[in-house]
Protein backbone atom coordinates (compact mmCIF):
# COMPACT_ATOMS: atom_id res chain seq x y z
CA UNK A 1 0.00 0.00 0.00
CA UNK A 2 1.27 3.43 -0.95
CA UNK A 3 1.73 5.58 2.16
CA UNK A 4 1.48 9.02 0.51
CA UNK A 5 -0.11 9.04 -2.92
CA UNK A 6 -0.47 11.93 -5.31
CA UNK A 7 -2.47 12.29 -8.49
CA UNK A 8 -1.80 12.93 -11.25
CA UNK A 9 1.84 11.94 -11.66
CA UNK A 10 2.20 14.12 -14.76
CA UNK A 11 0.23 17.20 -15.70
CA UNK A 12 0.74 19.21 -18.88
CA UNK A 13 -1.44 22.25 -19.30
CA UNK A 14 -1.62 25.62 -21.01
CA UNK A 15 -0.92 28.98 -19.43
CA UNK A 16 -3.97 30.51 -17.84
CA UNK A 17 -5.64 27.23 -16.99
CA UNK A 18 -6.72 26.16 -13.50
CA UNK A 19 -5.62 22.75 -12.23
CA UNK A 20 -5.66 20.67 -9.07
CA UNK A 21 -3.31 18.10 -7.58
CA UNK A 22 -4.60 15.64 -5.00
CA UNK A 23 -2.79 13.97 -2.12
CA UNK A 24 -3.84 11.26 0.29
CA UNK A 25 -1.94 9.56 3.12
CA UNK A 26 -2.86 6.33 4.87
CA UNK A 27 -0.26 6.60 7.65
CA UNK A 28 -2.62 8.12 10.19
CA UNK A 29 -0.47 11.26 10.33
CA UNK A 30 -1.98 14.53 11.48
CA UNK A 31 0.16 16.92 9.42
CA UNK A 32 0.51 17.27 5.66
CA UNK A 33 2.66 19.46 3.46
CA UNK A 34 3.16 20.69 -0.07
CA UNK A 35 6.70 21.20 -1.35
CA UNK A 36 7.85 22.56 -4.69
CA UNK A 37 11.03 21.22 -6.32
CA UNK A 38 12.59 23.41 -8.98
CA UNK A 39 14.79 22.46 -11.91
CA UNK A 40 17.88 22.63 -9.66
CA UNK A 41 16.27 20.06 -7.33
CA UNK A 42 15.81 22.57 -4.51
CA UNK A 43 12.88 21.61 -2.27
CA UNK A 44 10.92 24.48 -0.78
CA UNK A 45 7.98 24.19 1.55
CA UNK A 46 4.79 25.88 0.42
CA UNK A 47 2.06 24.93 2.88
CA UNK A 48 1.41 22.78 5.89
CA UNK A 49 -1.84 21.64 7.47
CA UNK A 50 -2.29 20.10 10.88
CA UNK A 51 -5.63 18.42 11.54
CA UNK A 52 -7.18 20.36 8.64
CA UNK A 53 -5.86 23.68 9.91
CA UNK A 54 -3.38 25.75 7.90
CA UNK A 55 -0.23 26.25 9.99
CA UNK A 56 2.44 27.14 7.45
CA UNK A 57 1.86 29.42 4.51
CA UNK A 58 5.13 30.44 2.92
CA UNK A 59 5.47 33.27 0.44
CA UNK A 60 3.42 31.66 -2.29
CA UNK A 61 1.27 33.52 -4.87
CA UNK A 62 -2.43 33.71 -4.05
CA UNK A 63 -3.08 31.67 -7.17
CA UNK A 64 -2.09 28.63 -5.08
CA UNK A 65 -4.80 27.50 -2.68
CA UNK A 66 -4.48 24.39 -0.55
CA UNK A 67 -7.49 22.61 0.82
CA UNK A 68 -7.66 19.87 3.44
CA UNK A 69 -11.10 18.21 3.62
CA UNK A 70 -9.82 15.86 6.36
CA UNK A 71 -6.47 15.09 7.94
CA UNK A 72 -5.75 12.32 5.42
CA UNK A 73 -6.14 14.56 2.37
CA UNK A 74 -4.45 17.72 1.19
CA UNK A 75 -5.18 19.08 -2.26
CA UNK A 76 -3.53 21.93 -4.13
CA UNK A 77 -5.46 24.10 -6.54
CA UNK A 78 -3.62 26.46 -8.85
CA UNK A 79 -5.39 29.25 -10.73
CA UNK A 80 -4.20 31.05 -13.85
CA UNK A 81 -1.15 28.84 -14.35
CA UNK A 82 2.07 30.54 -15.43
CA UNK A 83 5.19 29.17 -17.11
CA UNK A 84 7.13 29.62 -13.87
CA UNK A 85 4.81 27.22 -12.08
CA UNK A 86 6.42 24.35 -13.97
CA UNK A 87 8.06 22.16 -11.34
CA UNK A 88 7.64 18.93 -9.44
CA UNK A 89 5.22 19.24 -6.52
CA UNK A 90 5.59 16.86 -3.59
CA UNK A 91 3.10 16.08 -0.91
CA UNK A 92 4.39 14.86 2.46
CA UNK A 93 2.98 13.90 5.82
CA UNK A 94 4.22 13.53 9.37
CA UNK A 95 3.04 13.11 12.93
CA UNK A 96 3.79 16.03 15.20
CA UNK A 97 3.94 15.68 18.99
CA UNK A 98 5.03 18.82 20.76
CA UNK A 99 8.35 19.82 19.20
CA UNK A 100 8.94 16.38 17.74
CA UNK A 101 8.09 15.55 14.16
CA UNK A 102 7.89 11.86 13.32
CA UNK A 103 7.84 9.84 10.16
CA UNK A 104 8.17 12.60 7.58
CA UNK A 105 7.14 10.74 4.38
CA UNK A 106 6.95 12.01 0.83
CA UNK A 107 4.76 11.11 -2.11
CA UNK A 108 6.26 10.34 -5.52
CA UNK A 109 5.56 13.81 -6.91
CA UNK A 110 3.50 15.49 -9.61
CA UNK A 111 5.45 16.90 -12.53
CA UNK A 112 3.61 19.99 -13.72
CA UNK A 113 4.52 21.43 -17.11
CA UNK A 114 2.92 24.68 -18.19
CA UNK A 115 3.16 25.41 -21.91
Amino acid sequence: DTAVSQTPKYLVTQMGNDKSIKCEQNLGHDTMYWYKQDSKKFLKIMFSYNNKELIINETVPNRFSPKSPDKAHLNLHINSLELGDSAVYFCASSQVRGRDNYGYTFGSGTRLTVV
Partner: protein
Amino acid sequence: GESVGLHLPTLSVQEGDNSIINCAYSNSASDYFIWYKQESGKGPQFIIDIRSNMDKRQGQRVTVLLNKTVKHLSLQIAATQPGDSAVYFCAEKPPSWGKLQFGAGTQVVVTP
Protein backbone atom coordinates in the same frame (compact mmCIF):
# COMPACT_ATOMS: atom_id res chain seq x y z
CA GLY B 1 19.91 24.73 4.36
CA GLU B 2 21.95 25.68 1.38
CA SER B 3 21.30 28.75 -0.74
CA VAL B 4 18.78 28.68 -3.53
CA GLY B 5 20.19 28.86 -7.01
CA LEU B 6 23.42 26.90 -6.60
CA HIS B 7 24.03 24.22 -9.20
CA LEU B 8 23.71 20.69 -7.90
CA PRO B 9 27.11 19.46 -6.68
CA THR B 10 28.10 16.01 -7.86
CA LEU B 11 30.06 13.33 -6.06
CA SER B 12 31.50 10.60 -8.26
CA VAL B 13 32.34 7.39 -6.38
CA GLN B 14 33.71 4.08 -7.50
CA GLU B 15 31.65 1.03 -6.65
CA GLY B 16 32.82 -0.49 -3.40
CA ASP B 17 34.38 2.70 -2.07
CA ASN B 18 32.98 4.69 0.85
CA SER B 19 31.08 7.91 0.15
CA ILE B 20 30.93 11.01 2.30
CA ILE B 21 28.27 13.61 1.60
CA ASN B 22 28.47 16.90 3.43
CA CYS B 23 25.87 19.43 4.39
CA ALA B 24 26.04 22.81 6.09
CA TYR B 25 22.83 23.66 7.89
CA SER B 26 21.66 27.16 8.61
CA ASN B 27 20.00 27.32 12.01
CA SER B 28 22.08 26.67 15.12
CA ALA B 29 18.84 26.08 17.04
CA SER B 30 17.71 23.19 14.79
CA ASP B 31 17.08 20.12 16.91
CA TYR B 32 16.41 17.35 14.41
CA PHE B 33 18.08 16.38 11.15
CA ILE B 34 17.23 13.91 8.41
CA TRP B 35 19.02 12.56 5.36
CA TYR B 36 16.90 11.74 2.33
CA LYS B 37 17.67 9.91 -0.89
CA GLN B 38 15.86 10.85 -4.09
CA GLU B 39 16.10 8.60 -7.11
CA SER B 40 15.15 9.83 -10.54
CA GLY B 41 11.38 10.22 -10.92
CA LYS B 42 10.68 9.44 -7.27
CA GLY B 43 10.04 11.33 -4.07
CA PRO B 44 12.61 11.79 -1.30
CA GLN B 45 13.03 8.64 0.76
CA PHE B 46 14.07 8.64 4.42
CA ILE B 47 17.54 7.22 5.08
CA ILE B 48 18.52 8.12 8.62
CA ASP B 49 17.89 10.82 11.21
CA ILE B 50 19.68 12.27 14.20
CA ARG B 51 18.70 14.53 17.08
CA SER B 52 20.80 17.44 18.25
CA ASN B 53 21.69 15.71 21.53
CA MET B 54 23.70 13.12 19.55
CA ASP B 55 26.79 13.47 17.39
CA LYS B 56 26.72 10.13 15.61
CA ARG B 57 24.15 7.58 14.55
CA GLN B 58 24.59 4.41 12.54
CA GLY B 59 22.24 2.53 10.30
CA GLN B 60 22.69 -0.22 7.79
CA ARG B 61 25.72 0.85 5.70
CA VAL B 62 25.07 4.49 6.60
CA THR B 63 26.39 6.73 9.36
CA VAL B 64 25.34 10.30 10.09
CA LEU B 65 27.69 12.66 11.92
CA LEU B 66 26.57 15.92 13.46
CA ASN B 67 28.95 18.73 14.39
CA LYS B 68 26.90 21.47 16.03
CA THR B 69 29.93 23.69 16.59
CA VAL B 70 30.32 24.32 12.89
CA LYS B 71 26.72 23.46 11.90
CA HIS B 72 27.82 20.55 9.77
CA LEU B 73 26.15 17.27 8.96
CA SER B 74 27.61 14.40 7.00
CA LEU B 75 26.35 11.12 5.61
CA GLN B 76 28.77 8.26 5.16
CA ILE B 77 27.81 5.35 2.93
CA ALA B 78 29.93 2.25 3.27
CA ALA B 79 30.76 0.08 0.24
CA THR B 80 28.83 2.23 -2.21
CA GLN B 81 26.69 0.29 -4.68
CA PRO B 82 25.17 1.26 -8.06
CA GLY B 83 21.76 1.46 -6.36
CA ASP B 84 23.12 4.28 -4.21
CA SER B 85 23.20 6.59 -7.24
CA ALA B 86 20.71 9.36 -6.43
CA VAL B 87 20.40 12.90 -5.13
CA TYR B 88 20.93 13.14 -1.37
CA PHE B 89 19.39 15.88 0.75
CA CYS B 90 19.95 16.91 4.30
CA ALA B 91 17.04 18.50 6.11
CA GLU B 92 16.85 20.36 9.39
CA LYS B 93 13.96 21.04 11.69
CA PRO B 94 14.22 24.34 13.52
CA PRO B 95 12.48 24.57 16.89
CA SER B 96 9.45 25.99 15.06
CA TRP B 97 6.66 23.50 14.82
CA GLY B 98 6.65 20.91 12.05
CA LYS B 99 8.61 22.67 9.35
CA LEU B 100 11.47 20.76 7.71
CA GLN B 101 13.93 22.79 5.62
CA PHE B 102 16.06 21.18 2.96
CA GLY B 103 19.57 21.75 1.74
CA ALA B 104 20.39 21.99 -1.96
CA GLY B 105 21.19 18.31 -2.49
CA THR B 106 24.20 16.37 -3.75
CA GLN B 107 24.11 14.15 -6.81
CA VAL B 108 25.97 10.88 -6.16
CA VAL B 109 27.10 8.94 -9.21
CA VAL B 110 28.46 5.45 -8.66
CA THR B 111 30.84 4.23 -11.35
CA PRO B 112 31.75 0.58 -11.92
